[in-house]
């Protein structure tokens, strides 16, 4: 197809060493009638080409807001970003001009939304909405855009793409619609894709197909992927590393399998324990007590302390940093961190 063109395009760009995306100390607030809701309170994470970062958390944990801040699609106001950096290939996007920022969206960083039915425009054909990427960013003709749209639909394995290109979103099944969302994100072969709960709205069997397709295409194009989810099951197979968020902060980071095997934060621990397991059939399922905090009034100290079985006085007084996690003998564990004063006890399960 046009692989030659794309290779040429990639070569023209200055080679960049280091992570594709680097988020540093990001803060996002929402000004509401009842006060300022602190949705994101100092998030750091990075993603490299070909890497998959899973961001895990409940709603209100700030995972989606972080993603929207990266995309630059927060409504400001009521949202505002008082502090932080979002570096893409080394350049802080928060200080860029509007037009420069716009050109990154869709071309360099693309996003896949949770509910494809509402995320696609109901009154425009899917062919138009796919082709629009090429028309807006590449200036191709209407006819050529339509051809590209068919190509994209074939690439995400939508049957009879040629016949269905003029259909409207509501005429597709949920799984097919999510494939169209993926095709739209892939259209201009971006460096980074942010997928916000891409499979939550789908049936379980379709979930797996869509996840597999996404992983396969990511590998093929060597893209970075940020996978935002609340579902521990989705994460396990595809992610390289995980960041767990709670009340707008990252409370634990770890390579995916280590997190499952040995969590180093009581919140992660609670999440894992509340998954039903076959070997515990008949026992009562564990549930984290209490409710997630009101973002207008985040408790002092560690935000998780009112719900934490290990909470001590220090947890109510001080906000824990993301401590590096080590083995008992002090051997550092690569890529692991926990924002808990008692990470050692949690890690070694006492």
């Amino acid at each position: 197809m046009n692989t030659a063109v794309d290779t040429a395009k990639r070569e023209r760009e200055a080679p960049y060493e280091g992570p594709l995306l680097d988020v540093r100390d990001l803060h996002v607030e929402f000004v509401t009638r009842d006060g300022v809701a602190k949705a994101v309170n100092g998030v750091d994470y990075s993603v490299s080409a070909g890497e998959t970062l899973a961001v895990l958390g409940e709603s209100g944990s700030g995972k989606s807001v972080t993603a929207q801040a990266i995309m630059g699609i927060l409504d400001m106001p009521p949202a505002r970003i008082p502090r932080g950096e979002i570096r893409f290939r080394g350049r802080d996007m928060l200080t860029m001009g509007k037009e420069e920022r716009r050109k990154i969206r869709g071309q360099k960083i693309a996003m896949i939304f949770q509910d494809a039915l509402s995320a696609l425009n109901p009154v425009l054909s899917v062919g138009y909405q796919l082709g629009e990427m090429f028309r807006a960013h590449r200036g191709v003709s209407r006819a050529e855009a339509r051809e590209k749209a068919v190509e994209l639909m074939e690439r995400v394995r939508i049957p009879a793409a040629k016949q269905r290109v003029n259909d409207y979103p509501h005429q597709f099944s949920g799984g097919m619609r999510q494939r169209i969302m993926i095709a739209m994100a892939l259209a201009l072969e971006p460096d980074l894709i942010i997928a916000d709960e891409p499979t939550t709205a789908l049936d379980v069997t379709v979930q797996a197909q869509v996840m597999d397709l996404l992983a396969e295409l990511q590998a093929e194009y060597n893209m970075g992927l940020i996978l935002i989810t609340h579902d521990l099951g989705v994460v396990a197979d595809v992610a390289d590393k995980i960041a767990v968020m709670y009340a707008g902060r990252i409370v634990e980071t770890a390579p995916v399998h280590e997190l499952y095997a040995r969590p180093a934060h009581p919140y992660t621990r609670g999440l894992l324990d509340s998954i039903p397991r076959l070997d515990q059939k008949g026992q009562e399922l564990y549930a984290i007590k209490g409710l997630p905090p009101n973002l207008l009034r985040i408790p002092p100290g560690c935000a998780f302390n009112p719900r934490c079985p290990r909470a001590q006085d220090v947890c109510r007084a001080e906000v824990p940093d993301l401590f590096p996690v080590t083995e008992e003998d002090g051997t550092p564990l690569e890529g692991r961190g926990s924002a808990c004063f008692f990470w050692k006890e949690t890690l070694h399960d006492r």
Partner: protein
Amino acid sequence: MGSYVLRRVLQMIPVFFGTTLLIFVMVYSLPGDPVTALFGDKAADPAVVASIKHTYYLDQPIWKQYLHYMGNLFQGDFGTSFTGRPVSDIMADAFPVTIRLALMAFVFEMVLGLALGVLSGLKRGSIADTLVLILTLVVISIPVFVLAYIAQTVFATNLGWVTPTVQDSYDLTQLVLPATVLGSLSLAYVARLTRTSIGENLRADYIRTAVAKGLPRRTIISRHLLRNSLIPVVTFLGTDLGALMGGAIVTEGIFNVQGIGNVLYRAINQKEGPTVVGIVTVLVIVYLVASLLVDLLYAVLDPRIRYA
């Protein structure tokens, strides 16, 4: 599509007969004898009254009168007024005037209403938005006859730009002021509806998607926002043309425009049954056809509507 249209037309038939019957009953079977009223204060000769009643079928039971009327209507005969003039003649004189008036009002409300609505919808919370909101609220609150007086006082009495009343109803320039007054209420509704619709759509997920796609702002507004936001406005405008014609009674009266509103008002006061029924029947047909067209247009604009 074909079967949908057919079904809608079939639904219209009972509504047409029902509405015309209702208006027929209201005009002919309510107290107040039109024929006696014809003679004013003079005592009527019972023989003459009986003969007039016979000519106009008024001595028959109401359902017979109605069937008789409908039979004639389908042959294009709207009956004869008590003054002896065919109702179709009266309407042929008056309808062109009202249609012009209503069309002018329609263009005015559409162009200005949409412009104001889009402006305030896109600039929510701005001074322009607040102004549009206050202005439309004021226009909605002031009854049209008061508005007509204000317009008359300002533009005719104070500024002297126009004559207070219309001298020649076929002169389009003289109809500008009455048309503006007639269209002002709908203008306010169009502006508010557009504003609300834009506000709702601005927050829709697909607009967020369009932003995430990196589309230029003007593409997002023209292709995604306006297209979707105007669907409810178009349907309002569609039914409003008929409403403007029916609502012209007050405006035509104050500005002395010789359209159906004026004719209808006189006819109601004089209990001129045939004229009232004739004009209202035409208005009902206009309304029914307009709502059918709006339904079809809606289906064209919004692909989610299925022709089930």
